[in-house]
């Protein structure tokens, strides 16, 4: 009996890369991966758990990891609260949502048109421009914060809505992934459409876009993360409190180390952290299949 069971799970088919089912040889990976993922998950479980903790549990000694009497008090506190300058939290949340939606939509449009051109059009500078973009993959935005600041001042973008959107749109990784993905579409498809008389815009809109959905989903996730989690832009380029984002507000909660504020703030900071984290997780879970199929085109030659 045991022998039969054993042979069922030890066949050659389930060994090696991308197996179809369970195999005893996989046990060693589970032994490593299970404790490691538990460790990786700890801080994330902590976000969930502490967001629902009542004050006496947040400051309990010895500290308890899991919540015992969950409450939504922290969320009601968060939303009934005004920031130090009198702006309600819902305003930050609204800013974050609007900025993120506009950024994601604009980024998809801007990068995919450029990627279509770099992949399927014939023009002299094509190779050079793609090479320039590849060099820009190693661009570290944080290194040029200062000249960027000067550019933004020159363009009169300081303290505007658009300062949140425009600087993040040119994302070399995004263009790179999209271009690689469009390279996978055979030229014949486009030639056939051209013979049928379809215009460039029509080819892009009706043929390219529907075929690159997985890559678009990936760009959407990447842009979403950079827009939704962005506190820097609010800190550096925006002084008008009503134009700042939720990520910024959260960063003010964690940097104020003054006693009273830190104690009162912990519960709402935990609630705000959960609100910041959850959309990332949900969107990634929904789109993960698409991301994986884009990533197989991600090779850098």
């Amino acid at each position, binding site marked *: 009996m045991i022998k039969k069971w054993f042979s069922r799970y030890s066949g050659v088919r389930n060994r090696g890369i991308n197996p179809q089912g369970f195999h005893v040889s*996989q046990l060693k990976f589970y032994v490593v991966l299970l404790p490691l993922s538990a460790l990786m998950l700890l801080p994330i479980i902590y976000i969930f758990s502490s967001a629902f903790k009542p004050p006496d549990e947040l*400051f309990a000694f010895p500290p308890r990891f899991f919540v015992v009497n969950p409450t939504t008090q922290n969320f009601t506190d968060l939303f009934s609260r005004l920031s130090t300058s009198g702006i309600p939290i819902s305003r930050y949340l609204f800013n974050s949502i609007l900025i993120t939606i506009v950024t994601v939509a604009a980024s998809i449009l801007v990068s995919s048109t*450029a990627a279509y051109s770099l992949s399927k059009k014939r023009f002299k500078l094509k190779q050079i421009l793609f090479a320039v973009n590849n060099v820009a993959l190693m661009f570290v935005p*944080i290194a040029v914060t200062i000249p960027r600041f000067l550019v933004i001042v020159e363009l009169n973008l300081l303290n505007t809505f658009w300062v949140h959107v425009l600087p993040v749109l040119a994302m070399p990784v995004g263009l790179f992934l999209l271009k690689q993905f469009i390279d996978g579409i055979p030229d014949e498809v486009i030639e056939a459409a051209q013979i049928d*008389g379809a215009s460039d815009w029509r080819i892009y809109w009706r043929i390219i876009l529907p075929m690159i959905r997985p890559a678009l989903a990936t760009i959407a996730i990447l842009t979403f993360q950079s827009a939704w989690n962005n506190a820097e832009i609010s800190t550096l380029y925006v002084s008008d409190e009503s134009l700042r984002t939720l990520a910024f507000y*959260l960063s003010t909660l964690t940097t104020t180390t003054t006693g009273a504020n830190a104690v009162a703030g912990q519960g709402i900071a935990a609630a705000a952290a959960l609100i910041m*984290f959850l959309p990332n997780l949900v969107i990634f879970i929904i789109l993960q299949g698409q991301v994986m199929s884009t990533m197989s085109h991600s*090779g850098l*030659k």
Partner: protein
Amino acid sequence: MIYQAEMEAEVNKRSFRQTGNSRLERWLAKEGSAYAFLAVYALLFIIFIVVPVTSAFFLSFTFFDTIQPPHFIGLSNYIALLTQDDTFMKFVLPNTIQFAVIVGPGGYALAFILAWMLAQLPRIPRTIFALILYSPSMTAGVAMAVVWKTLFSGDQTGYLNSFLMGLGVLNEPVQWLQAPQYLMFIMMIVTLWSSMGIGFLAMLAGILEISPELYEAATIDGMNSRWQEIFYITIPSMKPQMLFGAVMAIVGTFQAGAIGVTLSGSNPTPQYAGQLIVNHIEDYGFLRYEMGYAAAVSVVLLLMVLFFTRLATRLFASDT
């Protein structure tokens, strides 16, 4: 019907093209639409990437305090950086190198090993593990600062303190994030924790793409160890993904520099223990307003990234 109308338009355009014979018009007809599709991205790319990088380069040769216009001072900033900036030589540079050497290759190797393990699991557990391992990198930054601050909190309600005191390892709470001897170590742990990012996903996809026939052929040819398989088949077959992962790891490592300031809550970090080159730029640029000098430090940072990427390209460049 619509197609017909469009076709007529196309025919009209063609005849127009033949009559118009200026060079500009011919160029526009041939390559115009390619540039039109590129235009918006190119414009934003120039404004927010090319211009800042080149102006950082030019500013680095000037003295600029944001009040008066910059004036040219030659290499003085670089000379000062190498000869007079004690903080840079004593703390910032060694810290950055230590951080980069451990977190960069460490995080990269970890990402590869984990991706390799995941690739050998069936689809459903693989997806679940990949999601768990990737999840830290989607939040890195503000939301996580809340968590780390409580876990490493300096009083006895901090989780690490409470845990270690419970075990009897510690007698009194340690100010983890303010203690120079621990800050760097904690920064590395936190960064490694969130290093399974997009490069990790790329490598996972890369391993899954390798054709099984390659492995079968190797087994027939007498290859029998897992290590041989990794070094002679897996890595060479996914060089492009390895390179992409490496570039992402390098950029991520230098980008992650802000973590020390986030954790300790101050710039400069306590006794410069967690001061990385990124914080040094911010310190000079936004706290002391010595923009020219800060620009020189930025240029050094960009050159470091460039150097390490070149190194990675050497290792993983495809022959094609």
